[in-house]
């Protein structure tokens, strides 16, 4: 309901509504996009573009739409466009970025997590893009398989198998890292 109110206000040019939407979704979108791109700086640019699109659609955005789903879909589409045009710039890899763990982790676990995250992102980079997308959108984006299937323009079964396949592959890569 809050989103509908925010959109209603944004459509009327409310800066406060824009700030609230930005605070609410920006970080999650950067996290999802960075996971898809394996590149934080480009992810920030992509998310900024998405919010610019939202700003430009102020007054026309339909209140009935799911705001988070819409923003995520925009970000994913932009990532795909980037992948198609494959930029020539050298990306700042996630390997160079120190991940920050969520607050629920105990400090002693965080040290291990840092390393784990590095391994995780390295492993993710090895997944075929569609599988990575299904995994990230379902786990980080909290999207249902049906929504992801719609975004990927495939059947639910296809999305489901992409997800399972991606997760299995991640497990296989990460476990082989541990055994080394």
């Amino acid at each position, binding site marked *: 309901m809050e989103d509908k109110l925010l959109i209603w206000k944004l459509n009327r040019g409310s800066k406060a509504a824009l700030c609230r939407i930005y605070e609410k979704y920006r970080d999650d979108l950067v996290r999802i996009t960075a996971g898809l791109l394996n590149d934080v700086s480009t992810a920030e640019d992509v998310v900024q573009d998405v919010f610019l699109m939202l700003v430009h659609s102020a007054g026309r955005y339909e209140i009935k739409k799911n705001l988070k789903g819409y923003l995520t879909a925009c970000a994913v589409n932009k990532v795909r466009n980037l992948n198609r045009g494959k930029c020539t710039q050298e990306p700042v890899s996630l390997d160079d970025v120190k991940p920050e763990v969520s607050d629920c982790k105990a400090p002693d676990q965080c040290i291990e997590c840092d390393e784990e995250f590095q391994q995780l992102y390295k492993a993710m980079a090895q997944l075929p893009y569609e599988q990575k997308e299904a*995994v990230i959108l379902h786990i980080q984006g909290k999207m249902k398989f049906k929504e992801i299937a719609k975004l990927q323009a495939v059947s639910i079964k296809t999305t489901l198998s992409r997800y399972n396949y991606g997760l299995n592959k991640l497990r296989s890569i990460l476990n082989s890292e541990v055994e080394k």
Partner: protein
Amino acid sequence: MRSAEKIKRLINNAKIKIDPEVKTVALTVLTNELEKIKKTKSAETQPNIWRLIMKSKITKLTAAAVIIIAVMIGINQLGGSIDGTSVAWADVAEKVEKIRTFICQRKDLQTTADKEQTVETKSVIYSSEEYGSRIDSYKDENIQLSTYTLPAEKAIITVIPSTQKHFRRPLTEDMLKEMEQKGPREIVRRFSSLEYKELGSKIINGVVVEGIEVNDPKVLSANFPVERVIARLWVNVETKLPVLLETEVVGQEETFQLKTIIDEFQWNVALDAEVFKPDIGIDESSLVAELLNGPRVHIFADGSQVQLAEDAKIRLYDSTDRRGFEHLAGEVEIVVNKGDREFIITSAFGTIKALGTAFKMDIFRVDSTNLLAVNVEEGVVEVSNAKGSKIIRENQRLTVEQDKAPYDFRQDENLPLGLVERIQAMLDAMEAGDKHAWLANFNIKAFYDLAKGKVEYEQHPDWFSGMSPDDANRFRQALANVNSPEEIKEIMIADISDNIYKLYVRSVTLDKDGKHATAICVKKQGQAIGFTPQWTFFDGDWWQTDD
């Protein structure tokens, strides 16, 4: 060893370190952009009289102003002269009482408190005791809108010359009485009965006038809360008739300001019937009684009713000889009372005829095409157009596309009964949000056999028409460890959306061999989305093979 659950938790807990400075700068860019867009839009938006009438907050001012001007029609009896003025106000009242016709000009300058909206309008008013009134609203030198109030026809007709459109609404007895109670006699009575101050005399257009000023909001018949009023009435000393009326009204909490000047009076001027005859062309039958927009409920004279959803639009028939209306857009729900005549709804898609029936109609856009969906809740409805005709009964529905015959897959003689039942089962399950019922349309055993390698995709691609060969391969690998068809079912059920949709089938196409079918369907929950489920006949039944 990391389990799948641990990997999921790891992904879920992953956070990117955010640079707050980057974030702040990025947000500033966005808010600046929003400001810029607001300014651009404001600059691009030219005053449009129709938009202003329909949407703007200025509309309220316009409506209020109409009431102020309405005070210039008619007259009341006054008492004796008001001491201390050379103009005897009783004489003014007496003179105005004898007025049968007049023409005047009115100018308004309406400004919102934030100065964001300023609208200047000009209108010319024609009033006749015999024929009614006409108000022409001008933009530049052109008439944008003419509103005729015609007591003889019991109608208010608004004509927009630029679009050659006109709208008619009934002039009720109450409205007429209210208008009769306001007029020049009323304004003179109010000015003289309230506390006023004398303004002395001056010359306007070579005429000597005297005026009084009233600051009591009661001098106006405004339909909005008024904070402050300055109202001045100037009267020709010689003729004892009003020459100029000036008002400055400030709305409550200073939300807006309205300045009005009414002048250029021509009293008892010859105005014949032609002046009050709306220019709406020869074809009187084209007059529309009313255009109704949702959300609202309209009850017809026979007790039938139509409920309009938010985006719905209908046009009532002008003729009282016909029952029904024209359906223009959006979702409408109709309950028809029994009557002597048929209840007929016309639309761009065809004609819908009903007798003693409750049903819904919805026009919406999908895949760049407009679609009409008709859903019968009780009784019988006939839907027909130049391409064909269909009758549907309780709990049945059909769709109509422009220049195509109405389509109801249940009445499609090309489809096998088993397939029709399977399509219906899919619709029922999706509309009820029943995931198990929906999944029951799939041959889960076939999926299980595929996962276990008991069935090769290449041998029966029709059984898995929602999958590509690669998808099938991945599916087999991902689910190779499942132990039963039920396990696959549970995995699939966990990810089926809880959304409940309204569903419509636009067409069903059967392959030449008669064993495979594809439908074009629409699901509507807010916006309409197309989808193309498929079915294949195998294992002795029709099974859904794609969603």
